């Protein structure tokens, strides 16, 4: 099967902006648009006893995660266009970023009706020094982790639900006794700070303990960052977030706000990261991807996370046999053994109409989890 090197764009938006976004995607002729419900968490100031004291609460906001693919030449025009249209440079509205991916199983010629939007006059604050971090934890722990991320001023985390797929095959019917529900926390960080951020999260979520979770970091091409971490009263003519955004725009980079996150515990100085990995995402009709995940587990994947999403977009709407209900299984594989899995998958019926599968492969910089010594 012929791989296609494309750009994957992910846009995390306040759900009040979703309608505008969807219409624009139709106008641009985007063939496949995946959408998933999620939430972002922010710190909110709460005044108690007539302003005498304030406390900080965690406030949740509904976000939609949109994902779509583009040929490289469309990346900048479409990103700029969307940032301007949705005012993503303003704090609190969402964020957008792009990644390099290799796709298998995309139908031929689906980008033929894609339109390049008119060039935007104003320069957009697209940062090029970002990384993406995905952290998978037990359900219920997402908010706790999200809060510590916010309090460190790292970035605004986005959380969504998934199910762990690893234990299914091993336990038989007993699997019902263990909760497989997971929460996936996604955030972006500056490349320079990324190692410290990973360490911080590993320490905070105790990911180096068995069964606590998994974290991996992947490179981003370009993107914006939502700077609204804190919701509260502004005592000045501009909020801190607006100032940060303005300076990012001027400098076209975020390294000016690099932090050295002091890290206390000597225990975690031994950096036992997993390297030489690839991220495999299997997209298919809902309920159909499990057998292929099992193939990946046989090839050495430690586990997989399944999330449900919907597939919209021009192409999806036109083919009546496809339903919009999809699922996405994400897993991480060793580079060396991944070929075995890929071959098996190509020889299976994953790409046939029943599953309507698409395989997405992307780079992983590093990962961390509990490793028995």
């Amino acid at each position, binding site marked *: 099967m012929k791989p296609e090197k494309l750009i994957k764009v992910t846009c995390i938006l306040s759900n009040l902006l979703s309608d505008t976004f969807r219409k624009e995607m139709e106008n641009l002729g985007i063939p496949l648009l995946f*959408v998933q419900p999620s939430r972002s968490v922010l710190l909110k100031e709460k005044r108690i006893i007539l302003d005498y004291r304030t406390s900080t609460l965690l406030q949740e906001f509904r976000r939609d995660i949109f994902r779509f693919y583009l040929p490289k030449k469309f990346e900048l025009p479409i990103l700029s266009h969307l940032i301007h249209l949705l005012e993503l440079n303003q704090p609190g509205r969402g964020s957008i970023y792009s990644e390099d991916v290799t796709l298998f199983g995309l139908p031929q010629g689906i980008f033929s009706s894609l339109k390049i939007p008119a060039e935007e006059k104003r320069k957009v604050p697209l940062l090029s020094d970002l990384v993406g971090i995905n952290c998978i934890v037990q359900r219920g722990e997402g908010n706790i982790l999200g809060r510590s991320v916010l309090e460190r001023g790292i970035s605004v985390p986005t959380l969504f639900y998934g199910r762990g797929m690893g234990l299914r095959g091993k336990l038989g019917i007993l699997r019902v006794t263990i909760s497989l529900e997971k929460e996936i926390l996604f955030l972006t960080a500056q490349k320079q700070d990324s190692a410290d951020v990973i360490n911080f999260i590993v320490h905070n979520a105790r990911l180096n303990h068995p069964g606590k979770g998994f974290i991996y970091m992947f490179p981003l091409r370009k993107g914006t960052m939502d700077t609204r971490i804190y919701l509260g009263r502004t005592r000045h003519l501009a909020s801190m977030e607006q100032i940060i955004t303005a300076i990012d725009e001027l400098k076209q980079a975020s390294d000016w706000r690099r932090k050295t996150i002091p890290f206390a515990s000597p225990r975690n100085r031994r950096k036992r990261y997993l390297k030489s990995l690839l991220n495999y995402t299997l997209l298919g009709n809902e309920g159909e991807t499990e057998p292929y995940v099992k193939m990946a587990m046989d090839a050495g994947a430690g586990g997989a996370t399944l999330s449900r999403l919907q597939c919209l977009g021009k192409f999806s709407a036109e083919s009546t046999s496809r339903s*919009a209900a999809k699922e996405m299984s994400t897993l991480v594989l060793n580079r060396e053994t991944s070929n075995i899995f890929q071959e098996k998958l190509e020889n299976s019926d994953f790409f046939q109409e029943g599953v309507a599968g698409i395989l997405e492969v992307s780079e992983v910089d590093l990962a961390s989890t509990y490793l028995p010594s």
Partner: protein
Amino acid sequence: MKPGKSGKVSIQNALPMVFQYGKKKISDQLKAVSFIVLYLLLFQLLVLRIPIDNALYAALGIGLVVLGLAFFLEGLFLGIMPLGELCGLWLPQKTKTVLFSLFALFLGVVATLAEPAISILQTAGSSIKAWEAPLFFSILNRYSNFLVLVIALGVGIAVLLGMLRFLYSWPLRPLITLLVPLLLAYSAWAYFDPNLRHLYALAWDCGGITTGPVTVPIIVALGLGITRTTGKGTDSSMSGLGVITLASLIPVLAVLTLGVILNSSSPDPTSRERFLSKEMEKEAVKVFRNRDHYLSYAVLHQSPAETLQNQFDGDPEEFLSFLKETYTNPKILRERYPNPELFHSWITDKEIREDLNILLADFDLGFLDAPRTFQVPPGQNSINKLMLALRAIIPLAGSLILVLLLVVKKRFPLFDEILLGLVFSIAGFFLFSLGMDSGLTNLGSQTGKNLHITFSSITFPERSKTYKKFDLSVVYTAYTDTGERYEFFLIKDGDTLKEIPFYRERYNPDSGEYTHIPERGPLLGTENRLSGLAVLLTFAFFLGLAATLAEPSLQALGVTLEEVSAGTFHKGYLIHTVAIGVGIGLIFGFLRIVMDIPLLWLLAPPYLLVTVLNFFSTEEFIGIAWDSAGVTTGPVTVPLVIALGLGMGETLPGVESFGILALASVYPIAAVLISGLFINRAKSRVIKE
């Protein structure tokens, strides 16, 4: 990364896993149920200060309820809801819209027929006398099968409309704006017809009862499955809701229409004497299931002399054989009196016995002395409950599985989990129904019978005591504030002296006996009846609150909403908001019973309010609010409310206990919509600042 180890788990390792899992599920339900149990217990013991009857029996029952709920809920999540979702995911793709619509209609009908709502309605309706509202009575008795079919059809149409709504993205708001005023107008018209007057209260209660604990999760899951495949519309993830709303409103229309159709053939309301008189017999029998049922009813509601004259043509032999058959033949007894206790308490009443002795003096009444147990043998009760559970779940789940296998012909994902879930659901439903009777409902009806002590006084004839060879010289006299004489005497109870009021009429000079019947006055004293009423209404509020916290379908809906909103909509928040709404609804419900306010006056304003609130709310919240209200009157709240209503109705004669559930269903809508307005305001604040 190394490939994972695979292999069977040993029993040794499996048992702790199963134990942990069971422990978590049971403790969750224990927490949910504990509120209502503790509340009822503490209220009866501390506020009313009346001891609990059969406490151990009740405790066992409650334990079964907790266990049953744990199994049932887990069964919902493992088996029933995934089945519904699969249908929603696969069927629209594989079948034409027409076929799918027929399936939706079929599903709605089967769901209603499977769940035993009609017996609840009959119990609730038992306080209405046949001559007060003949049409109402006949619908619940003679035409009860019609009633069930009509309700089932209503639900079927609702499910059909609901599914079409998803496929074609029709908004919910206009549907509600159309239906609610129509129903209110229809009810208002019915109110002015003396025969239909009681019926509209029944109709609205039917709407609340229909969507039961098995129907709701299936329909919600089905709706979710469908909306995921269409991917259309704004907030499409939330619009899997709305079917329950329709399934609560459309049956009201159906029942009212049934009433109108049958009205012409039904006798008008009349007095007891006229209704049970010989001349009216032909007309009166029309209202009952058959002549036997008519006779059985007449026996209980007249003096034996009247019955002998009116129904048995003055022939004592026929009358005797009727009584003898009923008393000695359990099968006939059960046919004539589905609740045998009613006949038993009638025939063992002293005065009735005396009358019978006089009327049937020429015959041998010795058979009445033979002790008879009218209790259902314990095994039989359990078997009945098991059949109930099987009936509630197997037709529905079976139809879904059959349809999936025939139409879709795909391999079932996680079929073993689904089967396990079905087994859990059946077991849970069985244990739950078994436990409800002896546990919560028992507690509830005890409290209900004693409840009006808050604002009036009640006597406890079952605790009366007779003092033989009573010496009048022990009676003292005191004077009250108003100058009246109050007579009393003292008895030694253990180490203390207790004061017993002396009423002349309870002293029998011939036998020298005084019968003391314990009495408890209004809770806060006779001068404070209004405060007593306030206590009653506060009780009602917290009852509604506590019962809602235990509702399984609401928990299922809450979990589904949390999942679909990626955690922004907390399950606890939904349950608490709805609980407050139900509490408020019960306040009005109890007010209605005590002050006999017509239901329409209490129902129309909130329904109009929420229809108006719809225009200020998003489609997302409209679906959540209206559906959660339809969900909430479920297997915990309904029996409790009915038991309490009946218990109170016994002590406040001539009042109907219908309509409480309808009220308990409308205020949650307002509660959720109002809180939704606040949430949406907060949300839009983030992106505007």
